[in-house]
Every structure is written in structure tokens, then in C-alpha cells.
């Protein structure tokens, strides 16, 4: 079920009212039932994959906790292999197979393994990663194994974050299912406001931009220069608003019922470096990789070459996590490379800034750093969004527009097609600028009633009158 569907407009209030109406001891069952229904609205049969993951990790959690010595590690590895195996089968088998077949063909070998006719279950990477974080934390002794199978199933399947995160941690979410949540007016309304803001990002910005970006990125060879640049810059906003919009709706929906999910975005395009960007973008995934891959590999407490290796491995795997396609691997690799170059050139850049006197203008320095980071991130998005490596190469090699009057009129032509999205982006940036000074909700709460109501009314009406109601899937569902 999509958040931006009519079904969800009925599902959400029914589930929420039912949740508060039921006694605490039955709420887990209600939420689990609702989560199953939510997931089965996509492809019902794929719930079996979820049941498999849940069963394996439920048993693994208890056996890891009971086991001693090397057996603990053995059970953990078995559980991780089951999770990664599931992911590999559904997401990476055909990719690997196609590449091996291509390689065999290139050297004239006969390659007999056929492709599997499988559709990638929605959100598989999200819930397997969430489930894996549970067994790892049980192994580390940071959380106790969950004895209640229903609550453990709910931890993996909790509907707001089931298909696109935030990828939760067991020590944050599991105890919340055991605690009785009371109806709290302030918390409920805050959750609803966050959901409305998420819908604004998704329907008014992301989906409107999609109308501009998709035709260009789906047929890039029909365009060059200005169109490709604008489509790339706009895609940066599309994916941000699409994904952070989803996260806002998920966090808001959970908040209404009393659950606090982890923050997933923190104004990523105000980052002043690539490292800063990754502290602000898809935080639940980047912290997952940090906690369960980067640090176990040694992080930065190893010789320099090993540190660089660790960084590249993490970013390449992060790219592959997003999709079984070389475009995603290159996207991840580019970010890894950015970080390495940033590390290598740190001193040189500082000296240049000192020499030209830029350090005396910290605001200008910050604007410059933010702009460069945004452009680098946007450049990497080309590989993320392109339908094929060939398309990405074409776009990269045809980005520079000719400098003439025709280019100006082309810019005007394209901007005219963004007449809803651009003012909406302006509002987004304005709100984010205000967020620098603190919570916008708290600022609004201090205003007179008519100002608050005007703001809420304007938000809701802009969603209804400017949003795109075509039930477009969230981009991150494919992962």
C-alpha cells in the first residue's frame, strides 16, 4: 500500500483508532495484522519471504543468546547468511548471472545457468537490514533476544517503516512495543503535521519534478546541455523530497501511535562536505553501514591505506545495496572517491583558503563549500538515476551547454515547466532555513492561533491543489 493512495487514507485512521481502542495486550496483534495487510497490498505472496526472515532471526536471536563461545558466532553467521542469501537470490542473482554470462560470452565459453524470473519484493533490503541489526545486537549483547514472536515479527514488519525505512535498531524500537502508549494530543498532532509536511514534499515537489525529470532521463539522447543539467539538479530535489517525504510520513504515522522512529534526514543539501552529507542523508542506512560494516572493518583506526580501503568497500556495497546495477555501484564508488579525495586534499584546500583570504569570510566559505558539495552530490545522482550505464555516460558527456541566447531561452522554457515545483522548493528551503534556528513546529506553536491555522490551512490546500495525485511509487521502494 502506498502512503499516497486512497487506501492509506482509510487504512491509517482505522488502524490508529483501532490501536488506541484496544487494550495494550492486543495492540501488537492489531499492528501486526495491519502491517501484514499493508505489505500484502503489493504482492501478497511475498509475505512468505518476510515470514522466512522473521522465523530465522527470531530463532537465531534466542539461540545466539543461549549459546556460548564460538557457537554464538556460528549462529550469527548462519542468520546473516540466511538474510543475505535471501537478498542475494531476489536482488542480485540475475545481476551476477548476467555479468558472468557476459564474461563467459566475451571469452567464448558456454554459460548454462538461466536467469530467474523473480520480481524484487518491495523494501526487501530495508527489512532484511533491520532484521540483521537485531541478530547483530543480540550477539553483541546490547539487546536481549525477543521472546515474544509476535512482537519480534512486528519489529521487522511495523508498517510505517516496513518498505522504505527508517531502518530501525532493536534497542530503539523493540522496547517501545512493550510499553503501553497513551493517547497524547500534542504528540498526535505533531505526528499529523509531520505527515502533512511529508505529503507536501512527495506530492507537490517530488512528483511534480518527476514529470520534468522522467522524460529527459528516460530518453536522454534526445536532450543535451541545459535540459540535462536542469534534470539532474531537479532530480537531486526529487529524490530528496521523495525519500525524506516518505520518512516524514513514516515517522509521523508512528508518532501518532506513540512510537519514536529514528531521524532519517537532516537537511542534507546544507552539508558543507561529502562526509557531512552522509551524516545527514539516509541516516538510518549510513549509520547501519558505519556500525555493522565500517567499524568492524577497522574504521579509521587502522593504517591509512586500510582506512581508504574500508571507505571504498562501504560505499561500493552501499551503492550495490541500492540496486543490482553498475550505475548504483558507480554512484557509491563516486561518493567513496569524493571522500578519499577530500581526505587527501584537506591540507591543500585549507592552505588555498588561507592564501586567498577566504577564511576571513566564513559565511562565503560555507556557501562555497555547500554549493560544491551539492554539485558533487548532484553529479553522482546522474549515475543513480540513469537507466543504464550508457545513458549515464551520454549525460555526463553532454552536460555542457553552448553559451548563446538560445541557451537562455531554453532555460526559460524548462523553468516554465517547473512553475509548481520551483516555488515549492523555495518554501522547502525557507522552512529548512528556519529549522536552523530550531523546531519550526515549536516556532509555530508560539504564534497566535490565526497564524498557526493559516499555515496549516496553506499546507493542506497546497497539497490538495498543487500536489500530483497519480499514486506514484516512492523511488526507494525499489530497493
Amino acid at each position, binding site marked *: 500500500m502506498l502512503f499516497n493512495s*486512497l487506501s492509506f487514507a482509510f487504512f491509517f485512521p482505522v488502524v490508529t483508532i483501532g490501536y488506541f481502542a484496544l487494550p495494550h495486550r492486543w495492540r501488537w496483534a492489531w499492528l501486526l495484522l495491519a502491517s501484514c495487510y499493508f505489505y500484502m497490498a503489493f504482492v501478497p505472496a511475498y509475505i512468505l519471504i518476510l515470514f522466512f526472515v522473521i522465523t530465522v532471526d527470531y530463532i537465531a536471536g534466542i539461540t545466539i543468546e543461549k549459546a556460548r563461545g564460538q557457537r554464538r558466532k556460528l549462529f550469527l553467521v548462519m542468520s546473516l547468511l540466511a538474510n543475505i542469501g535471501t537478498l542475494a537470490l531476489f536482488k542480485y542473482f540475475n545481476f551476477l548471472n548476467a555479468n558472468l554470462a557476459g564474461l563467459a560470452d566475451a571469452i567464448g565459453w558456454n554459460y548454462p545457468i538461466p536467469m530467474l524470473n523473480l520480481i524484487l519484493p518491495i523494501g526487501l533490503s530495508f527489512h532484511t537490514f533491520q532484521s540483521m541489526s537485531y541478530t547483530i545486537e543480540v550477539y553483541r549483547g546490547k539487546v536481549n533476544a525477543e521472546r515474544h514472536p509476535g512482537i519480534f515479527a512486528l519489529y521487522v514488519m511495523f508498517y510505517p517503516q516496513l518498505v522504505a525505512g527508517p531502518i530501525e535498531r532493536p534497542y530503539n524500537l523493540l522496547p517501545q512495543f512493550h510499553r503501553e502508549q497513551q493517547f497524547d*494530543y500534542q504528540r498526535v498532532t505533531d505526528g499529523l503535521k509531520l505527515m502533512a509536511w511529508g505529503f507536501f514534499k512527495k506530492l507537490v515537489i517530488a512528483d511534480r519534478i518527476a514529470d520534468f525529470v522522467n522524460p529527459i532521463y528516460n530518453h536522454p539522447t534526445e536532450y543535451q546541455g541545459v535540459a540535462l543539467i536542469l534534470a539532474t539538479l531537479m532530480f537531486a530535489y526529487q529524490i530528496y523530497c521523495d525519500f525524506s517525504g516518505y520518512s516524514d510520513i513514516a515517522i509521523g504515522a508512528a508518532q501518532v501511535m506513540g512510537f519514536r522512529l529514528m531521524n532519517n534526514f537532516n537537511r542534507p543539501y546544507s552539508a558543507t562536505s561529502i562526509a557531512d552529507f552522509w551524516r545527514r542523508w539516509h541516516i538510518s542506512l549510513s549509520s547501519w553501514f558505519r556500525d555493522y560494516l565500517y567499524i568492524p572493518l577497522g574504521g579509521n583506526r587502522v593504517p591509512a591505506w586500510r582506512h581508504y580501503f574500508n571507505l571504498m568497500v562501504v560505499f561500493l556495497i552501499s551503492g550495490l545495496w541500492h540496486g543490482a546495477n553498475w550505475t548504483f555501484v558507480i554512484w557509491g564508488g563516486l561518493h567513496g572517491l569524493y571522500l578519499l579525495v577530500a581526505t587527501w586534499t584537506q591540507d591543500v584546500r585549507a592552505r588555498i583558503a588561507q592564501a586567498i583570504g577566504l577564511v576571513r569570510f566564513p559565511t562565503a566559505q560555507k556557501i562555497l563549500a555547500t554549493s560544491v558539495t551539492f554539485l558533487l552530490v548532484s553529479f553522482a545522482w546522474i549515475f543513480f538515476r540513469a537507466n543504464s550505464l550508457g545513458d549515464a555516460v551520454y549525460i555526463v558527456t553532454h552536460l555542457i551547454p553552448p553559451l548563446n541566447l538560445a541557451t537562455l531561452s531554453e532555460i526559460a522554457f524548462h523553468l516554465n515547466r517547473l512553475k509548481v515545483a520551483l516555488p515549492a522548493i523555495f518554501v522547502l528551503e525557507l522552512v529548512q532555513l528556519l529549522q536552523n534556528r530550531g523546531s519550526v513546529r515549536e516556532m509555530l506553536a508560539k504564534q497566535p492561533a490565526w497564524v498557526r491555522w493559516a499555515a496549516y490551512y496553506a499546507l493542506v490546500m497546497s497539497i490538495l491543489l498543487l500536489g500530483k*495525485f497519480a499514486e506514484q511509487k516512492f523511488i526507494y521502494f525499489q530497493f
Partner: protein
Amino acid sequence: MIKLVCKLLLLFIAIALTYLIIIIGANAGHTTGYNSYIASIIDKQRLLETTPSPKIIFIGGSNLVMGLDSPRVEQALGMPVVNMGVNAGFGLRFMLNQVKPHIGKGDVIVIVPEYEQFYGHLNGSTTLIEALTIFPQAIVYLDSPDQYAMILSELPVFMQGMLTNWIGNLRPRDGFAATRQSFNSQGDMLAHLDVPSPVDISQLTLFTEAERTINDETIRVINQFDTNAKQVGAQVFVIFPPLPEKQARENREQIEAIYKHLQQQSSMTLLGAPTDYVFPVSYFFDTVYHLNRQGRDARTEKVINALKSAASAN
């Protein structure tokens, strides 16, 4: 909890009031609201209710409005004709429900569904909502939860269209604009007949990417209608809508699939095949279904012959 419900209710009322203002503003133009093309549903309803049986009723979308010469059919077959076509966006379910209570003994009902009705259009689109704002009495013709679901899910899109219309009302309009006054007494549009085509018909497409799997519900609804009509003593036929040669050629497989599906699954007599209603592109006005004078004459001729053959076969 009560505080929250009250505030949500207040917000809901504010939204409803805004919607109302937009609808009033949008419908206040010279070619909108009660003057609009869609408002012809009111006249057609009256025509349907007041025309005595036996009569010929044509059911379909705008292919009938801009593509049928009803007086000529009436003259050729000796029965009064009611052309109920307005817009395919009403959805075939609504169109059939509208006619159902007014079928009399000896009536001949000709369904001419646009091909999209066999995919996603069965329950209508924003045009149906527009019709309901102008002619709310038509709500009695909504009998399926799917129609209500469509209205709810399309309401924001409809309101966005209304807002655009309202803004449009403030500007002078150019070119051809069909209105309620553009029809003759039997429900055919005449205003467009001698207007040159404003678009290059050959560039238009017929189906969207989403329109690939035939909706069995459409056939079930048509068959149900046929059963009801037969019980009253009426006959029901299906005729295919007109199409330009190019689009017919490009979509041959899909159209063929619809035809076969109808042949196998429907209980009604199909008068001819889709290929019988393929015409040169020069016969079309502004869409792949709208005919100009030349096209309308050719199509009417074919419809008359098909109905005459059906009558002689009976």
C-alpha cells in the same frame, strides 16, 4: 481526543468551503458550469425521460456527440433517437445506469463504448465528478463502491482542474469551445462540423502504457445491462467507435483482443467489427474519436446499415 476531532472537523470544513468557492468560480464562466458541454447531460436526461418507446438509444462517450447524425438515423429507421453520448469520462457503468430505468418495450439500445472503457475507464474519471457538480441528481446512477472510490481518489485532481478553469475564466478564450448550446434536440453536436481540425490527428495516440489488460468487469456490466434490457423487452447491440486508419493500424492487436473478448464473453449482438468503423484521418476533428461533417456522414451511414441488417435478421 474530542479536541483533535473538532480541529480536524474545522480543517475539513475549511477545505470544503474552499472547494465550494472554487467550484462556484469555475462554473461561473460563459462556457463552464450550466453552460458547459458537460451540462448537456441535463438536456439528455430530459430527452431520455420524455421520448416515448419504442426508441433508439445510443450510449457511449463523445464519439457519439461528434459523430452521429441522429435525425438521419431517425428518418432511416422510423424510430425516435436519443443520443446519450456526452463524455467517455463518465464511465460506461454510469452511462448504462443512467439509461437503465428508462428502457421501454421495443427499444433498441446501441452501446458504442470508446476502447478505453475496456481498460480503466469503466468507473469514470474527473468528468463524472464535474457532471455531478452540475447535475447532482445523477448521483442515483452511482451504484458501485468502485465509482465512489474513483470520486474520492480523483477529487483532488478534479479540484485542480476546477481551479485551472476558474483562472481560465478570467482570460479571454480563443478557438472552438463546445458548450451546452452546441447540440441539436436529439443530442448531436453541430457546432464543430465545419470547423477545421485544430490538431494533427495523426500525432495522437490511442492507448496509454497502463491500458494493456482488459477489464472483465466491463463485460460483466454490459452483460448485466443486456439481461435487464431483455427482461423489459428491449434489444441491445454493440457498435465499435470510429478510429483513424493510422491509430487503428498501430493498435490493431489490442483492438482485435477487445473484439475477440467481446465476441467470446458478451451476450449481445455485435454489429460489425472494429475495422468497419475505420476512416481516413481527414474525417476526424480534434481527437481519434471525434468526426467532422464528412466523417459523421460516413459513420452514420454505416450505423444505419448495421441497424437495418440487424432489424431484418430479427
